[in-house]
């Protein structure tokens, strides 16, 4: 019976066979590519953490948030405030403090938003994120307004002060160390999220997504669970925001503005929101796509728009969804 039961779960062997080679490549990569590429990949991994968080709501709970810039931005601004007003340089303190703040705000915003679903939920998340954007924009004496706040990497320490970047020509060292730091946290987040979506709680979220009424008639407290999913989702995205700040060196209200929420949606749809790895692949690909689109044409938004239209029409299940379908067909033959 136990063998039988384990067959319904994901095959650990298959997962490890896919994950280990990818990890080896990611770990070895800084030896082979230049600093710029490492930096791009670090951005990609950070967005992937945000995408994982976002997709807990979209893919697993069936709630489309148009306001996830709020939690990303909150994480980013929390770290920036700690750097500017409290002279904090420790990444670990940024993470703890930032998670506390994003957690509290997502709990409050989630409490309001999960009272509704569908478009009403989307509009509420959008409205609340715009409130934060306005605050960041208007309270310029605290937030720096459109100039934003600087978080120079030179003041940063990693692993409780073990690694710092004082002195000259440390940018390359920072990029490498920070890449591994982000990679490590990305792995932790991925495992964490994987456990969440395969836990009884994750199954309950999927049940709510598929059929709210029936879930209720199985005794699942729908609103309560949606709220908890919202809190987790916001916290993951907040962590991504915290990690993004030292890499970017600057935080401006743009990161709280609605187009960035749209980008998070875009990444997730690009990768495929009905798959676990979809948002990860989507985030990394989107990051490259955007960077190279911006570099190659002044009309980069147009280019991304075309990609989005083609995506929705031709690959509605995203990159990973399409690949796994093709792989499934291939296996059947």
């Amino acid at each position: 019976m136990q063998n039988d039961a384990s067959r319904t779960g994901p095959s650990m062997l298959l997962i490890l066979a896919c994950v280990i080679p990818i990890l080896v490549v990611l770990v070895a990569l800084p030896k082979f590519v230049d600093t710029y590429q490492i930096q791009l990949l670090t951005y990609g991994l950070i967005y992937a953490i945000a995408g994982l968080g976002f997709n807990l709501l979209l893919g697993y709970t069936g709630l489309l948030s148009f306001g996830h810039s709020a939690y990303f931005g909150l994480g980013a601004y929390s770290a920036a405030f700690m750097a500017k007003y409290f002279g904090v340089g420790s990444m670990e303190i940024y993470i703890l403090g930032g998670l506390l703040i994003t957690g509290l705000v997502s709990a409050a915003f989630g409490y309001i938003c999960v009272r509704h679903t569908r478009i009403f939920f989307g509009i509420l998340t959008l409205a609340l994120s715009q409130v934060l954007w306005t605050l960041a924009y208007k309270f310029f004496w605290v937030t720096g307004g459109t100039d934003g706040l600087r978080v120079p990497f030179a003041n940063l320490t990693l692993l409780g002060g073990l690694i710092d970047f004082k002195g000259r020509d440390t940018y390359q060292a920072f990029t490498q160390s920070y890449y591994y730091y982000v990679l490590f946290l990305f792995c932790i987040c991925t495992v964490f999220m994987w456990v969440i979506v395969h836990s009884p709680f994750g199954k309950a979220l999927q049940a709510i997504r598929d059929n709210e009424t029936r879930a209720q008639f199985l005794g699942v407290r729908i609103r309560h669970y949606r709220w908890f999913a919202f809190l987790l989702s916001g916290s993951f995205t907040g962590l991504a925001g915290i990690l993004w700040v030292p890499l970017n060196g600057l935080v401006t209200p743009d990161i709280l503005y609605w187009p960035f929420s749209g980008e998070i949606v875009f990444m997730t749809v690009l990768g495929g929101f009905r798959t676990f790895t979809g948002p990860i692949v989507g985030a990394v690909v989107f990051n490259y796509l955007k960077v190279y689109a911006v570099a190659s044409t002044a009309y980069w938004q147009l280019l991304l728009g075309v990609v989005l239209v083609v995506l929705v029409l031709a690959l509605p299940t995203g990159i990973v969804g399409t690949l796994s379908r093709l792989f499934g067909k291939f296996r059947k033959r």
Partner: protein
Amino acid sequence: MNLLETINLKKYFGETHAVDNVSLTIAEREFVSLVGPNGAGKTTLVNVVSALFRSDSGKILFKGDDITHTSVTERVKAGIARSFQIVNLFDDLTAFDNVTLAIFSRQGKTGNPATLAHLDHEVSAEADAVLAQFNLTSKRKEHARDLAQGERKLLDVALAYALKPKLLFLDEPTSGVSTRDKGQIMDTIASVVRGEGITAVIIEHDMDVVFKYSDRIVVMQQGAILAQGTPDAIRNNDQVAMILLGTSGPDAFTRKD
């Protein structure tokens, strides 16, 4: 002892008196059929008792406790489960996951985000046992949406059953399936329900099914209870035959004309 008691229960939709002053008692371990023409208020009555709808007035007592103002989840926890007239499943989950979810919920484990569901071997074994009881073992890895109508109907009942309820409402468990499958589905349901000593209230149109499986039949018309009694008493009730069949006489329910 009465498991369920409704006292003067009312549910109106504007001018329509869907449930009109219904006082009904269901004894423990009874198998009761709720019959009546379309629009008689059978499903509305079940919807009110299972808290999908709020009653306008009246009382609902379950095991002697007043549950009139409790929520769906509170009634589920108290031991009331139901299946649905239009199959209501988690279509993107496998048959197995559908059932495990019900078991996790019953055990209060659905709030746990930190363990892997498929490693809970106790729950997996129970889910497999439930699937076997409903002859769905071969479908365990199939998505609910890919199952045949009869299998979906059984899975719908299996979900409610996996909650180990005291009182189980089955809303037309054989509607939309072939006559051949009907007997099989009802045999399966009856054996599980009777085997576990569950009190069942079933809404059904097929009078052959109703007469064969029920301890008691409750006939509803225009929101009110018209008659109730043993299958034999109802079979010989001319008024009931007239309402359900449009004809009467000593062999109205068996005549094939």
